[in-house]
């Protein structure tokens, strides 16, 4: 352990108090210490309902975002502005930090072959860029919703050859994130990245490969139990013809000579499929699937799972599915219905932050500023190893079903251990340490000689976007050995204790919830 341990020095005066509290539930009542929370109202917080909305539709409420919401006239008005803003194709935030991100497939392949930038490195760069974007972008709702689609229509970056086409795939889903599921589904299923990942490139009329045809039904649309194995075979046949020159140029083409022709039927969809160019039957087929009631249920449930709770009420899912169908699969009307629902209002703090959300929020709320990355250890590059260490490197979930969104999947001791390490390293500003600026420790203290309780309240307002409670104050006192009423100055709460205070905010249950 390379982190300085100073508690041994500091704890001398307070050892008795710390030992007393250690005893846990039975030994808890140390009547002498009151953990009544402090109050520092000068630090503004959003109303509870707005905090809730922002906790689900942003990657963390920074003071700047808080002010933006207030200026917009409240959370709902801010949300409306976000979902109606056109896609900003010029939002190239820090694209230039990783020079190969703009390569086309042939260039990416050439860079890999010449060892200028290997495919797996390019995919790490893509993950970095997306994490940086989540941390910095002003288009928070689009980014949050993009993550939902990029996970539902998941193409793992580590799958063979995918690196050549994976970046434009993500950009296309981002551009369409607030359009319609019909458009999203068509863009995803016919995209080269998906064609490579689910073996579509080598699915021909002689040997239809069922991989994509099956996952399309199982994961992207109607779900297991609603189709037969014959439907899967037809699904695969419909999708034949999309071709990639694998391992040569990775150029993309449609090859009518590979398309299986003849009548096809999948569930309620049937088509003569007589044309050697199957792209129209693909469009019709996907259009049918996107508008299927079971697809509506799937999309509605996925959005409710992402934004409401781990076991969304079926009443809400039904309602959202109905809105989806009534609006011809358009996304924004469904999102509006979701945020305006009673179920949403009742779901405050019901979601666990995933490890990646935790990491992004840590950067945002600790006010960490990136410099242009120059070496592997630069913060903007180290992000990818931080996320991998926490168990969730973006887009690397190995299976086509996408990373899980429920608490039970992420609430494991291994996640706890990794999160504690990241929180500690960043609360102290110890790592990453290159091309990065952390806030000065003293900058977290609004007024010298304020009480420790009030400092904790101020920090709670900044990092938890709400006033502090007794549990947080007790945690901060135990972490530091400082008494609640100690004066915050060089002798009472010296600045070298700030890492412990900040880590307490990141260790608290409120931090893990959103």
């Amino acid at each position, binding site marked *: *352990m*390379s*982190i300085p341990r100073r*508690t*041994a020095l500091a*704890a001398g005066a307070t050892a008795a108090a710390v030992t007393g509290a*250690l*005893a*846990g*539930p*039975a030994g808890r009542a140390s009547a002498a210490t009151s953990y009544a929370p402090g109050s520092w109202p000068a630090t503004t917080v959003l109303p509870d309902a707005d905090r809730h909305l922002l906790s689900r539709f942003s990657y963390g409420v920074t003071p700047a975002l808080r002010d933006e919401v207030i200026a917009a006239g409240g959370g709902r008005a801010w949300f409306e502005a976000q979902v109606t803003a056109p896609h900003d194709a010029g939002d190239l935030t820090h694209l230039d930090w990783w020079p190969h991100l703009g390569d086309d497939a042939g260039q990416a392949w050439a860079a*890999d*072959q010449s060892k200028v930038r290997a*495919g*797996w490195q390019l995919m790490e760069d893509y993950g970095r860029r997306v994490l940086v974007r989540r941390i910095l972008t002003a288009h928070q709702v689009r980014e949050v919703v993009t993550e939902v689609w990029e996970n539902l229509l998941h193409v793992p970056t*580590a799958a*063979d050859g995918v690196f050549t086409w994976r970046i434009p795939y993500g950009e296309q889903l981002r551009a369409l994130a607030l359009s319609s599921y019909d458009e999203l589904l068509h863009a995803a299923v016919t995209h080269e990245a998906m064609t490579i990942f689910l*073996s579509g490139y*080598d699915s021909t009329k*002689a040997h239809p*490969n069922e991989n994509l045809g*099956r996952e399309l039904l199982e994961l992207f649309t109607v779900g297991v139990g609603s189709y037969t194995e014959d439907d899967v075979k037809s699904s695969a046949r419909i999708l034949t013809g999309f071709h990639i020159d*694998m*391992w*040569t140029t990775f150029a993309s083409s449609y090859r009518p000579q590979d398309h299986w022709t003849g009548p096809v039927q999948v569930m309620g969809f049937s088509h003569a499929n007589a044309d050697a160019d199957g792209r129209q039957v693909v469009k019709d087929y996907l259009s049918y699937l996107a508008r299927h009631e079971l697809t509506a249920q799937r999309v509605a449930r996925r959005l409710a799972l992402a934004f409401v709770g781990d076991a969304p009420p079926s009443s809400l899912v039904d309602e959202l599915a109905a809105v989806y169908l009534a609006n011809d699969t358009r996304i924004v009307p469904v999102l509006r219905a979701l945020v305006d629902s009673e179920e949403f209002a009742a779901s405050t703090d019901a979601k*666990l932050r995933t490890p990646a959300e935790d990491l992004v929020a840590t950067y945002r709320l600790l006010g960490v500023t990136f410099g242009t990355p120059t070496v592997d250890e630069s913060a903007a590059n180290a992000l990818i*190893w931080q996320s*991998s260490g926490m*168990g969730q490197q973006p887009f690397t979930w*190995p*299976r*086509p*079903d996408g990373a899980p969104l429920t*608490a*039970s999947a992420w*609430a*494991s*001791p*291994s*996640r*706890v*251990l990794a999160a504690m*390490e990241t929180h*500690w*390293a960043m609360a*102290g500003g*110890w*790592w990453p*340490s290159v091309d990065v600026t952390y806030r000065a420790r003293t900058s977290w203290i609004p007024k010298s000689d304020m009480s420790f309780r009030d400092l904790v309240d101020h920090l709670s307002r900044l990092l938890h976007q709400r006033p502090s409670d007794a549990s*947080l104050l007790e*945690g*901060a006192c*135990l972490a*530091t*050995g400082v008494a609640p009423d100690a004066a915050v100055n060089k002798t009472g709460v010296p600045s070298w204790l700030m890492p*412990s205070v900040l880590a*307490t905010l990141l*260790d*608290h*249950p409120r931090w893990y919830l959103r």
Partner: protein
Amino acid sequence: MNGCPEFARLDTLAVSRRNLLRGLTAGGIATAVGSAVITTSPASAAPAPSVLVVLSLRGAADGMSLVVPHSDPAYYKARPGIAVPKASLLAADAHFGLHPGLAPLLPMWRAGQVAAIHATGMKVPNRSHFEAMELVEDADPGSATRSGWLNRLVGLTSTGDPLQGLAVGSTPPTSLAGDTTVMSISDLSSAEVPGEDGRRASLEAMWRGDSTPMGRAMSATLAGVDKLAKAQAQADHASSYPDSDLGRALSSVARTLRADVGVQVVTVDQGEWDMHTELGTLSWGGMRSNAAELGKALAAFFNDLGTVRPKVTLVALSEFGRRVVENSSYGLDHGWGNVMFALGAGVRGGYYARWTPLLTTLDADLTVTTDYRDVLAEVIAVRMPGSSLARVFPSFARTPIGFMAGQTGWGRTATPVVAPPVKPAPAPVKPKKKKKKKKKRKHRKRKHKSRRKKKS
């Protein structure tokens, strides 16, 4: 200990309360989680009499490449590009032989410590990775409760110590999901609470009484970290393993088991077996590298166990097998039957199979003749006698196989039950012409192990 559920539960709480009181007086650590109390003290770590390690080969490993049915002519007919030549097989008998990549396992094989049980799986094919994994690991068909068979197994004798069950890897598997709280680590070095000494007390106070999944995880973490300190003190022999996630995971497991801190069940996951494309041959492709990694890692693991080796049994399985006939991408699509491996304590080595002759139709599967639970249950019956199989595998009637010591079953010498082949459908496809394939470029990820935070 394996009586009715109520008794087990009461017993858990009673033990926990005793430990809690002891913790208060002796300076141990106690943590409340909802209504239960999880507690541990290094002194109370009782060694487990036997240990079960379950290795999941994620993505559906092709069992017919790992344990090759060379006597079935359809195997070679179905796989002109990727079949393993008979002459290359290791430890071949009249019917089966091992992939050459498994060579490091030959000493154990010859010592009769490796069993390969073929044509195993679920009774009904399920070709979805996620659904199949969920079903295999839940192993309680028809139940709506998500609870894994290993979690139920640990639950039978749970003392409230989360380290009785240990998952090694980034995400704990379904088999360990459930009511009984277990420990999970990415690797052994991560098992600590970083930071100042006061952080531990702070965490305990702030999460006290939190019964959410994250609250339970926090409590298990704090308890588990204490015990794993003893494992961290064990010698690290990682250099004898492959330099891979599997190698590192099994190395962590070996150190933990050598510490003998009461771990009964361990899960390890390894991915990257979903070879729709480029499964390849003996000279290139995914199977070549994966088989070699698997063989080396398993051999290193058993060699690294030291004095606890006589109590450790490892089972390796996948969620399902792959098709008989290769596709046009030198790969195999999702199939049904597969091989399972059992290694180590109590195993009576060799090949075990009730084989249905393979067909060469495009969608032919290896027919499952042995329920995968028969394999798991036989290991438990022998290594953890007294465990209630009815609770681990509800509504399942076990058929003994005989690959574990002392078990009498259909065994390897039983007359193969050969079902008459179903009349093959007319071959829908003419034999494809060989394409010259460019050898796959491997994008092996570099590991960044040394990126730790630095001193201020």
